[in-house]
């Protein structure tokens, strides 16, 4: 290290600024209280301050910023969904993602890689043609390609998958990308903090006071806050918060596990997903293979990892990439996924006046971080659901009007 640089580092005149301001105490009241300091909650705080001028806002986080599903997902960003509501919503998110690094003045390592969803059966190929047509209709780059295109993009792949589930084709989505997930939470958090939003970590919500169908205040581990508006953006803890306001929902919690390998030389550029083999894989900028599979098979409110998961995932991984047999698994972890029956989120207003939901993000929430913040900020500021999220309201279940996103949301079904 050059000496001049070291001298600069030790000079107290140039301290490295903190990402967030530390607030000793909560104020007695805020205009908006956001529960959950993950990407979604911080993004909503950011857009409330930046686009609606609402800065008397606090974000309450039980643990630390981005420590929940924001830091536990496999960082894939795409918009090739199945329903018109989904495609338009995620497409707006991808557009926001592309400018986010500049917006924050923080490198999110947003890397456009291209995304292949592999088809091993005729029926999978049929769903992909359907998805491609819906996508194209809404101007999203999406096409069905043959196995030779997959082989060219990922030459190490065994296109027959050990001979028993050959790849017949794939849905190719050129805008598919990956990004550094922690940085997204930090970027939104810092942006919100600079505009006056207070972020309180290590602050747990213990109860929500509702009077005459209206939100009155929030009881926390650091004292009482009176407020008229509360946003719940807590992923796997959503049912616990809903219990506090006595709102019923179809949300159920299953863990979703993931793992990374040791770093290896770059050999895989695109993101690959196989619904039939329950595998998705991409290679991070550091060379680690980031891998995931389907949901754990039963309800659990915890983040333990299992050997069953590693065994199942690696056996399928080796069918696709036999040469990986010598690569070691470095870490595995789990997050609590808030699942819905139709694989679409639950967003917007609720039967309790002033209580807003950004939930039901199951296994598909990371990519939606920017657009969720933006649309929820609009919903809170105007007390009217943003036009992009009307298909995701909690009412849709009571009205038997589901938004069936199962064919495009995740793997394993």
């Amino acid at each position: 290290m050059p000496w001049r640089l070291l001298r600069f580092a030790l000079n107290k005149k140039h301290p490295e600024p903190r990402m967030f301001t530390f607030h000793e105490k909560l104020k007695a009241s805020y205009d908006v209280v956001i529960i959950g300091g993950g990407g979604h909650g911080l993004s909503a705080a950011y857009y409330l301050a930046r686009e609606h001028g609402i800065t008397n806002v606090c974000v309450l986080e039980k643990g630390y910023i981005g420590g929940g599903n924001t830091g536990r997902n496999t960082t894939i960003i795409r918009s090739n969904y199945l329903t018109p509501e989904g495609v338009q919503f995620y497409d707006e998110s991808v557009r926001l993602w592309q400018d986010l690094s500049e917006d924050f003045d923080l490198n999110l390592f947003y890397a456009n890689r291209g995304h292949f969803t592999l088809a091993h059966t005729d029926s999978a190929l049929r769903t992909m043609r359907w998805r491609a047509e819906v996508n194209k209709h809404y101007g999203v780059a999406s096409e069905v390609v043959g196995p030779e295109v997959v082989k060219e993009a990922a030459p190490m792949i065994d296109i027959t998958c050990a001979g028993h589930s050959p790849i017949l084709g794939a849905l190719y989505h050129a805008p598919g990308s990956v990004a550094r997930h922690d940085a997204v939470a930090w970027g939104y958090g810092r942006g919100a903090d600079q505009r006056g939003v207070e972020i309180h970590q290590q602050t747990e919500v213990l109860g929500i006071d509702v009077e005459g169908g209206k939100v009155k205040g929030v009881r926390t581990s650091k004292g009482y806050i009176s407020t008229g508006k509360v946003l719940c953006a807590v992923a796997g803890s959503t049912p616990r918060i809903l219990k506090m306001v006595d709102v019923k929902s179809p949300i159920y919690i299953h863990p979703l596990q993931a793992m990374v390998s040791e770093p290896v030389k770059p050999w895989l550029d695109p993101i690959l997903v196989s619904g039939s083999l329950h595998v998705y894989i991409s290679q991070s900028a550091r060379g680690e293979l980031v891998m995931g599979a389907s949901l754990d098979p039963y309800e659990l409110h915890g983040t333990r990892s299992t050997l069953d998961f590693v065994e199942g995932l690696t056996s399928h991984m080796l069918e696709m990439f036999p040469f990986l047999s010598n690569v070691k698994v470095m870490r595995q972890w789990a997050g609590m996924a808030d699942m819905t029956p139709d694989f679409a989120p639950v967003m917007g207003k609720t039967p309790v006046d002033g209580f807003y939901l950004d939930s039901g993000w199951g296994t598909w929430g990371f990519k939606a971080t920017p657009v969720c913040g933006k649309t929820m900020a609009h919903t809170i500021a105007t007390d009217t659901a943003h036009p992009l999220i009307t298909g995701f309201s909690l009412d849709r279940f009571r009205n038997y009007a589901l938004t069936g996103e199962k064919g495009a949301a995740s793997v394993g079904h």
Partner: protein
Amino acid sequence: MKIMTCPLNGPRPVSEFHYWGEVRPMPNPATASDDAWADYVFNRNGAPGLKKEWWCHTPSNTWFIAERDTEKDVVLKTYFYEGDQ
């Protein structure tokens, strides 16, 4: 949880079992209102706690009830269904 006790076959690896959700009383579809039926079909008790659940030991197709703590992942007891209690 790695081992579960089937009331018929005794302790077996949990991978042999299939989870089928909480035990819930079904309203009569002929008389229930649309709202009550939607509530039954879609809504779930998603919060953690001690729950009575349907499980099946798949190799022997044995359906039974497990009482499980869904936060700690501990099964307290398993037994055969004997009508609504």
